[in-house]
């Protein structure tokens, strides 16, 4: 049970941290922030990785894990790139000033 109780603490503290991190967001950044946070939620790729590694020679499991990893990376890489593309437009405007 020790993993579980530790994990619950982690869950609690992580949630509190998340609540504190975003206090006041200028409306300009709502869209990029949403997209960036969305990319981070693709962290579930770690679970997919773990699944593949632990599955050994179990082919169906390897396939499920691989598809899962694909979905997660689609989210992560796409999310970060698209966020960067949006933010690049803001910074370009400001440096030109």
């Amino acid at each position, binding site marked *: 049970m*020790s993993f579980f109780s530790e994990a619950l603490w982690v869950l609690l503290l992580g949630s509190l941290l998340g609540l504190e991190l975003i206090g006041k967001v200028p*409306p300009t950044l709502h869209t990029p922030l949403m997209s960036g946070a969305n990319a981070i939620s693709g962290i579930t790729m770690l679970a997919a990785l773990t699944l593949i590694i632990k*599955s050994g020679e179990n082919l169906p499991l390897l396939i499920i894990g691989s598809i899962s990893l694909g979905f997660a990376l689609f989210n992560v890489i796409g999310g970060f790139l698209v966020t960067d593309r949006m933010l690049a437009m803001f910074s370009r405007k400001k440096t030109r000033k």
Partner: protein
Amino acid sequence: MTFIAPVKFAIDLLAVLLLALGIKGLSKVRSAREANRLAAIAMILAAFGVLLNSQGTIGISINSWIWIICGTLIGGLLGAITAKRVPMTAMPEVVALFNGCGGMSSLLVALGVALFPSADGSDGVVGELIRNFSIVVSLFVGAITFSGSIVAMAKLQGWLSTPSWTQSKARHFFNILCAVIALIGGIYLSIDGQNGLFLIVVASFLLGIGVTLPIGGADMPVVISLLNSYSGVAAAAAGFVVGSQLLIVAGAMVGAAGLILTQVMCDGMNRSLVSVLFGGALGASSVASGGGGGEYTNITSCSPEECALTLEAAERVVIVPGYGLAVAQAQHTLREVTRVLENADIEVTYAIHPVAGRMPGHMNVLLAEADVPYEQLKEMDVINPEFPGTDVVLVLGANDVVNPQAKNDQTSPLYGMPVLDVQEARTVFVVKRGMSAGYSGIKNDLFDLQNTSMVFGDAKKVLGDLLLELKELGVGSKG
């Protein structure tokens, strides 16, 4: 290989720190871009940590490597291509699509562990009941996130309309039924770890569809933001399933931050989360209660030509871009028009309502894409006192955000929503496709005012005509 565990631990700690700094930084304009990169680095670190740790403890077979590389390449490439290709106007759909895929990933992990319990990452450290319960949460939230996001994307793209039955009470019945079935499946699965698996997946899928389908296009960003929060919860649940604390903390952070962001968005739109999720289309109820209804009595319409003549004589022009502009993808044409005006020494500024565009902050992105200087974009509180000294206001595809009812009429459902006081200006032109109401379904008193003229037509077409007229008048072509 004893040194690997502490190294992995250090990597995880660093990754969490970077992720937290990333989310924090993303909420400030100056640091946003670096913050996004920090978060990306954190993800790479975290993945490296998992690989290193596994290599050191149980080893990674060649077979596993092949499947890892396959999944990475295909998912990563598709993601990169999508991110590069997508037009900025389609941003809400894309975020929804990415988000749905994240939910799907969590769902698949839980599915894999449920079907093949030997793959349980925690090696019996986690009790069976807790493990099963984590699987249930991961399946449930993952499925809702996926189907909800895909429906949101399809609706925003216009592939799906709102079926009429979803506006009736029947949808509540449908949703409750799905939730109950998912709950029963969940209880089964928690107890014996096998039965009820597909029951819960299918019911959760349907629930995601049933909840998202009735929601109107303008409320969709709130839903996407909420689903984004869910995908964080799904990731945290997957963390319990495979026994990864890093996953739990990151998922919890995104889940909580997403919830706050959703709340902030709701505030900007003067909507409560409950009414977005359960209220259905705002229009139906407001017409019934009679508040804000009524017929238009004094509509003046005019041609782009008249509009151009007025603009020529103006000294200060304020542009109010809205949803319609984004949908018509007219931001580049708008920029050409304003360039002509600027060449004629007419002062042009843009009034950005907090929820202008298809998603809060979306309009800023679109105008930035069309090369509008950042300093010409003014937020509502800054621009509102300036309207009395303005000659011409050009409202492009915005409606509810310029409705004076929100300030004057206490019975109006819009009352209390922050709006732009465009009626204070000398002349107001409203470019609009027809007399249909905004997404709130409420009559806009602005259109009836003496100093307001309507220019009917698609925003892009009207702006194109306006551009031609201005050029014919010789505006901005010095010498």
